[in-house]
């Protein structure tokens, strides 16, 4: 194990050449409260020990004291680059616990949300990752497009970041035809933008030098380390929850799972670029084949009534009041439900003893498990490469935190 060597490399008379350097928590490339204690021999990393920082917001503890609906806003704040994806993942887990499934249009709407979230998250990743490595132009391009993406998210959900869009049993509301046509415009134009990003970086000598053969991890190590998402696929393992264990009817969509071969930073970049194209492909199919009908389950015990009805019917008003103040009952049992979010597998393990709050809610976050490979990837690399490796793992500390 990497960490067990800590004592060996403390500064001592035996190792006068080893220098300890703190990278972060205020280093721009550590993306939040991450601090990496590096032991350096010249410019070579002998050992890297990540410290996750004291962000601790007590998500899992809070979940035990909130009803299922009340927890949805907390999922926005986990991976704040793709709140929609976490909204979808959490609601799917609760629905599995309840044993219900949203109507077809609701599933399509959620697929739109999840894939939009993937594009948005990869856009920020690409801009900041390139910025970390000195390619500032990229940042301006991707943030301009993210603005476009955020406008779409805002028009759908009413918020740019804290979307809280899905509900247990459906979504806050349906997408309007106008919004769908604007999304269609985005989907038409976006692949050309990805080509443009690629023309700036993929064959750029400096970019290739900074990323190829950097932070190499073998497929075997990546699996043992619990990596998921693009960083796992960069090693050549074609594991994607959407393909392996389809949810929301992903099995009916045509898309490819891009894989790399070298398992280095460059391949993880290529995988994410291709993923953005595949996401637009899924969006295209979802827009074209969007079924008619309701987006919500027809169960007044679980789902909030439409606002119009609340204002005109006493019975619906009572339903709304009961669901908001008291929540709904879930059966006793336990489920683990996983979704493929931009960073990998996001799993919710819910233990219910019956009643309105989960007895225990466990969040298996991809960022936490991906970041655990940092030490293994960094050792033997140059100190400047640690920046590239952190970027390739795409950690969001809000999701690492619990």
């Amino acid at each position, binding site marked *: *194990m990497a*960490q*067990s060597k*800590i004592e060996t490399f403390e500064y001592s008379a035996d190792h006068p050449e080893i220098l300890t350097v703190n990278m972060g928590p205020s280093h721009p490339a550590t993306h939040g409260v991450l601090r990496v204690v590096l032991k350096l021999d010249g410019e070579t990393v002998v050992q890297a020990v990540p410290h*996750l920082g*004291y*962000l*601790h917001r*007590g998500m*899992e*503890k*809070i979940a*035990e*004291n909130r009803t299922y609906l009340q927890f949805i806003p907390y999922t926005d704040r986990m991976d704040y680059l793709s709140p929609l994806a976490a909204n979808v993942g959490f609601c799917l887990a609760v629905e*599995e*616990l309840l*044993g219900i499934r949203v109507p077809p249009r609701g599933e399509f709407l959620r697929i739109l949300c999840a894939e939009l979230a993937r594009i948005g998250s990869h856009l920020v990743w690409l801009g900041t990752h390139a910025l970390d490595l000195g390619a500032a132009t990229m940042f301006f391009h991707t943030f301009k497009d993210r603005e476009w993406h955020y406008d779409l998210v805002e028009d759908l959900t009413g918020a740019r970041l804290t979307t809280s869009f899905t509900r247990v049993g459906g979504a806050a509301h349906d997408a309007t035809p106008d919004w769908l046509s604007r999304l269609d415009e985005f989907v038409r134009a976006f692949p050309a933008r990805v080509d443009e990003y690629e023309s700036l970086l993929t064959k750029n000598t400096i970019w290739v030098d900074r990323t190829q053969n950097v932070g190499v991890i073998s497929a075997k*190590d990546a*699996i*043992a*380390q*619990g990596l998921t998402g693009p960083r796992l696929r960069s090693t050549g*393992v074609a*594991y994607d929850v959407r393909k*392996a*264990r389809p949810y929301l009817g992903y099995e009916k969509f045509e898309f490819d799972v891009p894989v790399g071969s070298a398992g280095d930073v460059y391949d993880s970049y290529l995988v994410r670029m291709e993923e953005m194209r595949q996401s637009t492909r899924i969006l295209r199919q979802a827009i074209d084949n969007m079924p008619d009908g309701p987006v919500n389950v027809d169960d007044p015990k679980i789902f909030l009534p439409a606002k119009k009805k609340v204002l005109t019917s006493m019975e619906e008003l009572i339903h709304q009041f009961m669901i908001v103040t008291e929540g709904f009952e879930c059966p006793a*049992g*336990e*489920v*683990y439900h*996983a979704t493929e979010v931009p960073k990998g*597998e996001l*799993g919710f*393990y819910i*233990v219910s003893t019956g009643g309105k709050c989960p*007895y*225990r809610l*466990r969040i*298996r976050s991809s960022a*936490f*498990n991906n970041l*655990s490979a940092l030490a*293994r990837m960094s050792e033997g690399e140059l100190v400047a490469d640690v920046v590239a490796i952190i970027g390739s793992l795409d950690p969001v500390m809000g999701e690492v*935190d*619990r």
Partner: protein
Amino acid sequence: MAEGSEAIGRMRASFPDAVLGEGEFRGQCWAVVKAERLLEVAKWLRDDPANAYDVLLDVTAVHWPEEPLPMHVVIHLHSRERNDRLRLKVPTGDTGPVPSLTGLWSSADWNERECFDMFGIVFEGHPDLRRILMPDDYTEFPLRKELPLFRG
């Protein structure tokens, strides 16, 4: 066929005295495994080609203060080859001990540290068992049921 049920059947045949119980909910199965036998069962689950659970997805725990063994360590395994998932539950005392799985899957390292940090369960044989999310001088274990959400 419910997920994980075949593996649990094989586990009962190979380790009759290590499996304390099993259960199923919404097509997901779990087996309750004795803490002292966990290591050999886990090694068999990983290495036996019929099981091939090569990914350790998650290690966490659930606190049941009323039970004689209040801490239940919950382990989620995934087999890529068979596309199957299995949940193991390991009941243990207030502070463990539970054998560490770091020797079998390196992903156990951080997950067990987090479990120790939140519940105070000691994982025997873990190379670096210290707090991961909370400050080093913090004395309590936040996810235990006796710790209230607010202390006014």
